[in-house]
């Protein structure tokens, strides 16, 4: 079960060029709307014909510009769930699901099987217009699986649902993947959804993939300031390299010195960008701590399960945003106007080449 994707597409004034792969996993295509995520799925499904490139599913070429191959969407056997689902409104749930089942297979038993798999057997004779959002979602998934596709393409499938339902359905999707061994390409612009579902993550921006890597790699080690921004890294600073030895660099950030893990070869004296996610920053009581600076709490926002705190340096060092879970927030007794030591752990302080 694999997809290898490499394609260039021209759409009006928009040029698209991207490559990634998926092997028995969930690959999340993440980015703003219009970044090229949906067109990627359309190219895999055969609904859009790229100008150049090669797309294979399970090793079988679906598109190959050099060899002149463009397999019709009907012959690709990929399950495709479009945004807002596009259920067939004039058909019952069972008819929707049965539509894609090949003639050779006993349609009624296969339909029943799929409805059971998605736990919607009791909705078989209902029309889509009478279903709730979550029920429709399950119908769309069952329909996409009708041809026994090993590859599932999902375009923002949960965007119209409320939070609680999304949680349930994401769990459902993970169950399906485990039960059926699916390879899933999942499009979303929701950071939390991307984080929850992705084995690997492709960050799209303006028709390009900026970074394609394992989820934690992308979140913790973004390749550029742009990726860091897109993946919600709140602290991105300009810094100067003072020295760089054995993968550890000493940096000057707003007048303060910090050690940082440096996967790139940055010459002393050169300018780089450095990022650290808000939840990786440590709050310490005043004392002797390495890689830390003194700062005052200026603003705080409560989000229920977590708090976002804004700190201003007392003398040197950058302005920092800190995310802290509610429990430690209470235990520490954080309150406005207090002075704290802000620790930026060297292993989490990530150095990026400046663009």
């Amino acid at each position, binding site marked *: 079960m694999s997809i290898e994707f490499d394609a260039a597409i021209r759409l009006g004034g928009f040029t698209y060029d991207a490559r990634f792969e998926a092997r028995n996993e969930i690959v999340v295509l993440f980015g703003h709307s219009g970044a090229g995520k949906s067109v990627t799925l*359309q190219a895999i*499904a*055969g*609904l859009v014909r790229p100008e150049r490139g090669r797309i294979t599913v399970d090793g079988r070429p679906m598109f190959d510009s050099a060899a002149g191959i463009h397999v*019709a*969407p*009907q*012959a*690709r*056997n*990929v*399950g*495709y769930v*479009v*945004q*807002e689902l*596009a*259920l*067939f*409104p*004039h058909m019952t749930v069972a008819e929707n699901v049965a*539509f*894609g089942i*090949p003639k050779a297979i006993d349609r009624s038993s296969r339909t029943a099987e799929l409805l059971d798999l998605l736990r919607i057997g009791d909705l078989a004779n209902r*029309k889509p*217009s009478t279903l709730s959002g979550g029920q429709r979602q399950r119908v769309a998934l069952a*329909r996409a699986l*009708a*041809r026994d596709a090993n590859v599932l393409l999902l375009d923002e499938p949960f965007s119209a649902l409320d939070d609680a339902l999304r949680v349930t359905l994401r769990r459902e999707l993970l169950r399906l993947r485990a039960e059926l061994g699916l390879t899933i390409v999942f499009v979303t612009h929701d950071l939390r959804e991307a984080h929850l579902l992705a084995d690997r993550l492709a960050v799209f921006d303006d028709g390009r993939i900026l970074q394609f890597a394992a989820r934690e790699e992308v979140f913790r080690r973004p390749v550029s300031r742009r990726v860091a921004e897109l993946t919600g890294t709140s602290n991105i600073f300009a810094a100067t390299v003072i020295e760089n030895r054995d993968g550890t660099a000493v940096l000057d950030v707003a007048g303060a010195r910090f050690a940082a893990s440096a996967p790139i070869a940055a010459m002393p004296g050169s300018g780089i960008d450095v990022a650290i996610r808000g939840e990786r920053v440590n709050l310490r009581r005043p004392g002797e701590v390495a890689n830390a600076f003194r700062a005052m709490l200026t603003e705080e926002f409560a989000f229920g399960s977590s708090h976002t705190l804004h700190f201003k340096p007392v003398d040197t060092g950058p302005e920092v945003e800190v995310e802290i879970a509610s429990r430690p927030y209470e235990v520490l007794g954080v309150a406005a106007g207090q002075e704290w030591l802000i620790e930026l752990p060297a292993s989490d302080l990530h150095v990026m080449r400046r663009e």
Partner: protein
Amino acid sequence: MRTDRTALVTLLVLSAAFAAFFVLPFAGLAKRAIEDGKTWELARSGTAQAALWLSVWTSTVTLGPDDRFGTPVAYLLSRARFPGKAIVDAAIDLPIVLPPTVAGVALLTAFGRRGLVGEPIEAWTGQTFAFTTMAVIMAQVLVAAPFYVRAARSGFDSVDRRAEAVAYTLGASKTRTFFRIVLPQVRPAIMAGTVLCWARAMGELGATLIFAGNLEGTTQTMPLAIISAFEGSSLGLAGAIALSVMLLGVALGVLVVFRLVSNQETWQA
């Protein structure tokens, strides 16, 4: 509170005035038809029966070409993008806005004995269109087609294109997708367009009078029989009223039955 009442009263008064304007002419017609003892007899006269039958069957035949050719046109207009589409769009609506007499004259210039294609056709086959029932149908097809195409087109416009894309990925050919996914969703619009088209064909007068002529049994449809009666044919004014009431009854019957049927369908859906 007071303003609300004033608004409501105004709304009711205006609606009532408007409704009266629509109802009164038909009430007048009905009153005359009832008072005039000969209505039933006139409605059963040979002229009236021949005209009604001719109108009903030619209008029904009109649906054939309008549906068969109108549906692909509507589909193309909904889906295809091509230069000059706006002009084609507008041109199709022309028969709606132009007086039907213009359509009649236009038909003559194309299919008349001295028309663009009428002349060569007569030279090759000896066949002419004027004064034939064929001409009646041609006139009706031309003036009624836009009503069908418009309705069908808006039906196609309302179908979710992504549903078609999904059908392709589920292995359905373009043909199967069209007949199983697109057409069923467009069916109510097509039905409505068909009824509108039929009703317009039933009411067609100007183009028929000019292009087809006016002869009982061949080209004299209900509207022609009515205008002839009004202009002094032997049926007279009483005949014009009797025929009008007949036409009104048939048209109303068809429209009501259609409403009932389509409401039931919506309810089932």
